[in-house]
């Protein structure tokens, strides 16, 4: 990924207020680079789908600008939309159509000449080739989900939006989908996905954006987000409870649980010295014995929940 290059997708001051006055997007700014996988996390109703819909042309932005490969999505909609593939959240299909004809329809709709070889390639990649002549209504839910992806890939887009692609999908299909996403990444397709499965974002995304109440409250490289906020904690279960932390242990900024039988030490896994060895030595010198120890790492989910709660508190003055 060449971050110095022009972003393939650039969003500036994007706002969307619906006719009933509900503000679904508030001043969104975001640059996405070619070949990047960015995961958008957020609770239900946060604005994720509205953001995707605004970029794809389904929702009309109230203000702001979006460019795709340098082209404005309103003035140059033909150029921008032909570069984008969208897999919507809902399984919306023409039940009475065959798999092949719906795929051919999608490719034509996006202005591409018929190309049976490409459609076959897409169907094979998604394990749908043997279903090509079947009516869509005969497909299982998982198969329909694959078909939605196939339709979005039928016109060879450079940017793929996946709106909750694994919602209601079994484990094996989910793994297949992420394999497909990785293959697309190898072909330098830019992928923007929304998901409720935080571990998936953690596993697959290059960057993570968190949306809440229509605001993009954070966008960061996954690795730096994890190292910045992903501190580890060492839990020491004491052999005998203590009333207070001895003075000589104050540099470690330990926490003592209310029962007095557990010490918690927070450290940064990315730093050169974690301080664990010195702490254990000093505990020994202070005569504090422990019977068990374990470490825990803050997951992306913890970070996400904290950020969403902080954002909600700022907006409402009360925790959610």
């Amino acid at each position, binding site marked *: 990924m060449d971050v110095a290059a022009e972003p393939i997708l650039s969003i500036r001051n994007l706002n969307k207020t*619906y*006719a009933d006055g509900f503000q679904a997007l508030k001043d969104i700014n975001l640059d996405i680079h070619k070949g990047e996988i960015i995961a958008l996390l957020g609770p239900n109703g946060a604005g994720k789908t509205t953001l995707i819909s605004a970029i*794809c*042309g*389904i*929702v*009309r932005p109230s203000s702001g600008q979006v460019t795709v490969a340098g082209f404005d999505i309103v003035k140059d*909609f*033909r*150029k*921008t*939309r*032909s570069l*984008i593939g*969208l897999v*919507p959240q*809902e399984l*919306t*299909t*023409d*039940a*009475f*159509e065959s798999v092949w*004809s719906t795929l*051919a*329809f*999608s*490719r*034509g*709709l*996006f*202005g*591409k*000449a*018929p190309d049976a070889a490409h459609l076959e390639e897409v169907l094979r990649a998604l394990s749908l080739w043997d279903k090509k002549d079947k009516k869509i209504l005969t497909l299982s839910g998982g198969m329909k989900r694959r078909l939605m992806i196939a*339709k979005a890939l039928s016109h060879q887009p450079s940017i793929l939006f996946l709106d909750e692609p694994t919602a209601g999908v079994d484990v094996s299909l989910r793994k297949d989908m992420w394999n497909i996403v990785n293959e697309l990444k190898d072909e330098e397709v830019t992928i923007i996905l929304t998901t409720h499965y935080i571990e998936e974002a953690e596993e697959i995304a290059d960057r993570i954006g968190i949306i809440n109440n229509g605001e993009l409250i954070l966008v960061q490289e996954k690795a730096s987000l994890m190292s910045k906020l992903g501190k580890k904690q060492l839990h020491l279960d004491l052999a005998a409870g203590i009333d207070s932390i001895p003075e000589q242990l104050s540099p470690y900024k330990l926490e003592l649980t209310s029962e007095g039988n557990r010490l918690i030490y927070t450290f940064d896994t990315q730093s050169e010295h974690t301080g664990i060895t010195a702490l254990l030595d000093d505990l020994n010198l202070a005569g504090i014995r422990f019977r068990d120890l374990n470490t825990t790492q803050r997951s992306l989910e913890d970070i996400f929940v904290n950020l969403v709660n902080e954002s909600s508190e700022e907006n409402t003055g009360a925790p959610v």
Partner: protein
Amino acid sequence: MNFYGVMAIYKFEMARTGRTLIQSIVAPVITTSLYFIVFGAAIGSRIQQVEGVSYGAFIVPGLIMLNLLMNSISNASFGIYFPKFVGTVYEMLSAPISTFEVVLGYVGAAATKSVLLGLIILATAAVFIDLQIAHPVIMMLFIVLTAASFSLLGFILGIWADNFEKLSVVPMLLVTPLVFLGGSFYSTDMLPPFWQTVTLFNPVLYLVSGLRWSFYEIAEVNVLVSLASIVAFMLVCLGIVYYMFRTGYKLRV
């Protein structure tokens, strides 16, 4: 111009007709045959000639017009309403295709189906009566213009409707009475003077009159007035469709 996009919509809509052949073609042909048997043969044999034409032949343009109007509206309205209803319209809204091209695809397909149906009804009529067409080119012009403009009306209806009831209200409660009261099955000369004047406000009268002139050179109003009416109606429909897409009416929020 997104030629492949227009063709994709057109082919998709035409394929839908293929899947619903009985509903789209067989049913109107049977209905028309029944009209000829009941009105043409049974009742028509007891009716004098109307303006020098046998009653069976007189009602042919009216029957064609009735089917053109009903089928143009239902084909085009269903064509755009169904993607809205099942949610597949997202694909069209996110595709690199303009308003004009979308209309060309949907309305083109609906109008094609109606024209084909009109010609099938004409062929069915030829089985029952001795058919004469004085101006075949003008007849085709009326059939094509009517099919295209009422397909546009159907397209507008399909965007406007947010349930199946609304979709069927306009053809059933508006178009059917207008066709029946628009001189499809009688000459307005048969009416009292007051109702003759009222009928002049029925737009369908102008269509039936124009089409009948192309068959038998008999008309309620001047054929040029009929042509101008259908062209004006088409322009109004085009204006409404343009407004709907420009504002995103019931399509883009």
